[in-house]
């Protein structure tokens, strides 16, 4: 297990390096002389020179890159070019809402997806199976913005059931929960299809296993066989696959946040790129990439717990 995890962690180092290089490159694209900007228009050449030295701008690009890495490691991601606030502060305020949105969507989409996938597998080849497959194919063919816009138009505007603009507070307040409902529903709906598909495939594979036949042979009730024997084993690959789909969820989250003006990292990143606020873009891409790496490592650990055979090979 330890070795397996170490291998996975080692794999994320080049990714991290690549992201840092990207972030560094983005900061190089900032127009104008950074030292001049910091010093202000009335600064003497000596002061500007001093600032250049302090920032390490007089050194080679390679040294500057390492200076950049050490600054990032200390949580210094520079300042937003538009608001002049520290990037790390903007990100700190945005990461919570993104996390809320992901949680809110997973909490219903994963159980529903697993249930649908299992029902389809049990009824393989029958009408119910075909209906569920059709729903899943439809689900993976829907652009997330379309689902979001439809929910806004009907649930939010015409039926006036739920608010659809921004975030009103933490999830445990009634208003906060109401505001989180539609964005979470949007993001969750695109995730049901993939989860149902993966569960169906995994369950079908397990249903052919010898121990399932044994379980049936010793006279266990069908629902016991399905839940205790099939589902428990089918869930192992599903967990990994959900981890692999984290990128898909992240993409959905970026779009969802933008549609619902949800103050998360995705919306921050898109806004920064469109406004050419490169330090903020750099920071938000960095934090998204790091969270993605962390989620994948977490899934690997979880996988090891669920299936002790992993890593012993």
């Amino acid at each position: 297990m330890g070795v397996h995890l170490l291998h996975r962690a080692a794999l994320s180092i080049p990714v991290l390096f690549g992201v840092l290089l990207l972030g560094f490159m983005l900061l190089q694209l900032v127009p104008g002389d950074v030292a001049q900007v910091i010093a202000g228009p009335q600064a003497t050449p000596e002061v500007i020179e001093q600032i250049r030295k302090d920032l390490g701008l007089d050194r080679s690009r390679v040294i500057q890159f390492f200076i950049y890495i050490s600054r990032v490691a200390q949580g210094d991601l520079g300042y937003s070019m538009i608001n002049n606030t520290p990037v790390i502060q903007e990100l700190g305020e945005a990461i919570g809402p993104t996390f809320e949105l992901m949680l809110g969507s997973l909490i219903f989409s994963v159980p529903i997806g697993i249930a649908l996938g299992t029902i389809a597998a049990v009824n393989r080849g029958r009408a119910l199976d075909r209906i569920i497959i059709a729903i899943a194919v439809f689900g993976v063919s829907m652009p997330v913005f379309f689902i979001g816009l439809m929910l806004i138009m009907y649930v939010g505007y015409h039926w006036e059931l739920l608010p659809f603009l921004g975030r009103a507070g933490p999830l445990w307040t009634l208003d906060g929960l109401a505001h989180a409902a539609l964005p979470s529903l949007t993001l969750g709906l695109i995730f049901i299809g993939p989860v149902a598909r993966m569960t169906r495939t995994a369950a079908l594979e397990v249903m052919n296993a010898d121990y399932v036949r044994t379980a049936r042979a010793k006279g266990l009730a069908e629902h016991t066989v399905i839940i205790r024997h099939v589902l428990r084993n089918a869930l192992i690959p599903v967990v990994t696959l959900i981890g692999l789909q984290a990128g898909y969820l992240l993409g959905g989250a970026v779009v969802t946040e933008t549609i619902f003006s949800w103050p998360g990292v995705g919306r921050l990143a898109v806004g920064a790129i469109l406004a050419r606020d490169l330090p903020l873009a750099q920071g938000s891409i960095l934090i998204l990439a790091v969270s993605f790496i962390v989620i994948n490592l977490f899934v690997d650990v979880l996988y090891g717990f669920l299936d002790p055979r992993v890593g012993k090979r």
Partner: protein
Amino acid sequence: MTAVTANEPVVAPRRYGNLRRLFRDKLAITAAVLLVLLILAALLAPWLAPNDPYLTNTRLRMLPPVWETRGRWEFLMGTDGLGRCMLSRLLYGLRATLMMGVVATAIGGSIGLLLGLFAAFYRRLDGLIMHLSDILLSFPAILLGLSFAAVVGPGMTAVVISLAVATIPTVVRVTRASALVVMGQDFIEAGRSIGLDDRTLLVRYLALNCISSVFVYMTLRFGQVILLGSALSFLGLGAQPPVAELGTMASAGRNELFLAPHIAVMPSLVIVLLVLCANLLGDALRDMLDPRLRHT
């Protein structure tokens, strides 16, 4: 495969009941026909479009489609927020979106195919190529899109590059997996022993035997590429207004969502149709030609 009788097809594995197969095939054929029609509509857009897709008219803003009371026959699908003909814009938008998807899938697919073949053929390169593609694979496509848009600035180029790059590692994996199976066959050894050079072996013996799996996978991938690309465009990172592109059009329709929902809904529905057809066709092709892909 036991006792294949003469009147049964040998190619398609008989894993479903006949009824189910028929149902699936019908669906796949419908999807294929629709896809061809969509591609034709995109190709013929300049001839099919009833109006200039870029001609604005402030007095004809937000006209509903013709089947609604205020609709007009010159604008079958109504007009958008600037009074431009929706039908013409949908045709041109479909053209731009399809072009984006095809170019990105073709570039990413051919680089992936080449790398995958090399990984299987030259075992020395295998480790390096697979490591690189693993690294690329752990970089989600949306992040690639955001990054390229940040570096080169929002636009079609950024979207196509990021979609192509995101496609490479997935195609590498599929190609390598199927090429390794081919490499184990006797005819590769036979080709070697009659003194064929690497190029001939690689192209004639290996590539031609893997191409069907890779093609099936690319059909499946195409739907995802379209979805991602239109999402990036929707965010404003892709095609820039006034260019007609389906994602950009849906995004522009947000401003008039409550007054004239058709402006956002119609381009979205075209995307759904396009992706649905690609997915259905890809699924059916996979089941018919290459059931092994089911697990990738």
